[in-house]
């Protein structure tokens, strides 16, 4: 097709310019999220201070029981995070060093639970951990115990269940960083006389730190807002903030207070994320790992 040179060039350039017509493509999604996501969150802010008043926040902070829920939430999140690190770091390391078959097996074992529904996995844990569950039955029939162990309706059950759910969120960022670590660096350290433990500690471990930080941050933040798993596996001692919010809405019909607690959780989540993100950026910059 023959066109005047100027037109062809300007059309070609048009495809390359900033192109506000591209912005139009993004507009529907942006408008959608603004209306159906941001507005509901705004509604929570509004109701937290108007139903009946900003005293909602005071009630939360002043009531010992509620503050305990908040502390319990942070405690649980911390325990789950540490458990995820203890279980997840060696797992990611094994994935890094495994051959093709081992890697495939380890990936499958990680991804299959990750893909399946949270509710199904939590339910599966109830069948395993309850007094008449698989674990207790097996232990009793083997004669190891006479009475069922209390594996559920307590912090132990919550920790086990939540760690199970969180493990992929720890391993995946860790592995992503580990997969880019050049293993010849640890070989070089060994050739300079370092033992395997030293080589790991002084070469590999620091290089994997960004992945560890990312996984830790992710697991901690996700654990803060958790509702379903603690509700099913925990006892009255283990009411976490997510369940408090949900119960205030569905049981107490106390929308204003529930919104206030929700906003508190949201602000805490953003604070943790923001601080963690900043620390990550600064450490990466100092170590020259920023890309």
């Amino acid at each position: 097709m023959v066109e005047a040179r100027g037109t062809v060039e300007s059309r070609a350039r048009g495809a390359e310019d900033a192109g506000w017509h591209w912005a139009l493509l993004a507009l529907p999604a942006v408008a959608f999220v603004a209306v159906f996501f941001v507005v509901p969150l705004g509604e929570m802010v509004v109701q937290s201070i108007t139903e009946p008043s900003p005293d909602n926040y005071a009630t939360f902070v002043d009531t010992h029981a509620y503050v305990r829920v908040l502390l319990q939430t942070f405690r649980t999140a911390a325990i789950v995070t540490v458990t995820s690190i203890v279980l997840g770091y060696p797992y990611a390391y094994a994935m890094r060093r495994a051959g093709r078959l081992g890697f495939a097996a380890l990936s499958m074992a990680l991804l299959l639970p990750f893909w399946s529904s949270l509710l199904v996995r939590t339910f599966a844990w109830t069948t395993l951990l309850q007094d008449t569950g698989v674990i207790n039955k097996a232990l009793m029939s083997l004669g190891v115990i006479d009475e069922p162990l209390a594996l559920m309706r307590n912090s132990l059950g919550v920790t086990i269940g939540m760690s199970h759910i969180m493990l992929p969120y720890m391993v995946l960022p860790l592995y992503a960083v580990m997969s880019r670590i050049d293993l010849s660096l640890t070989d070089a350290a060994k050739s300079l006389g370092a033992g395997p433990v030293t080589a790991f500690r002084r070469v590999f471990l620091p290089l994997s730190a960004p992945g560890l930080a990312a996984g830790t941050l992710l697991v901690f933040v996700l654990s803060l807002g958790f509702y379903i798993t603690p509700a099913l596996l925990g006892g009255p001692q283990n009411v976490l903030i997510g369940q408090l919010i949900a119960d205030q809405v569905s049981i107490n019909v106390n929308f204003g207070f529930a919104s206030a607690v929700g906003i508190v959780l949201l602000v805490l989540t953003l604070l943790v994320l923001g601080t963690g993100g900043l620390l990550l950026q600064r450490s990466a910059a100092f170590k020259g790992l920023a890309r």
Partner: protein
Amino acid sequence: MSCSRHRKAVYAFATLVGAFLLLPTLVVVPMSFNKGSRLELPHSLSLKWYEAIFDSTMWRDAMWTSAQVALLTVVFATVLGTAAALGLARWRSKAVGPLMGLLLSPLIVPVVIFAVGVFLRYSQWHITGTMTGLVLAHVVMALPFVMVSVGSSVRTLDRNLELAAASLGAGPVLTFRRVILPLIVPGVVAGALFAFITSWDEIVVAIFMTSPTFRTLPVVMWSQVRTQVDPSLAAVGTLLLAVSTLVLLAATLLRRTTRSSHG
């Protein structure tokens, strides 16, 4: 070499962790075939629990509702998300970063907060307990997954192809239809599959947005887990597991295709 001793210890530990990951996930499968009516590993096998859930109106309605909600979510999330991913990848403006953050922000807001906010606002619009309300909320949650998936596809596009099309006289719509779209199809389909699973398995928002007459599969399961606990739950769990695995396996394979075909 002594390092192989350490390596073996790590592998052994990883195997234990792998068992920890897999066994609870898979334990529902044998339980679903139990002839008895308790949730335990079966002594004798039977399909009766599968028959029970397919015979039950409650479970069948829930499955059908879940499917409808998920399909509607997929359609809207894929269309909105693909357009947005493409638009934000091409638009040169300082607004792109913040807008991308906005569209991905549902990922960092704890679900229970979003669920309560949605419940409060949508009830004023009178769409709680309706398919409309639930689909709108699910589209918000599925959008980030579509955007990440399509976004990574778009990043592998060779800009020269679009320039060549433009130089041959193609307008933007034609370029999109004949050049861009065919190349990003794997990313779009993968995103659609992630969107499907996001809606299909979603529980927290569904708890707030459903009603006694309008319930999705996870909501029914949630209510049954605390009241009537028998192997029918294991059967439902197994079915859900099968669906999730198939859908997400397909999505992962599609994303590998995108990556490998573009180096």
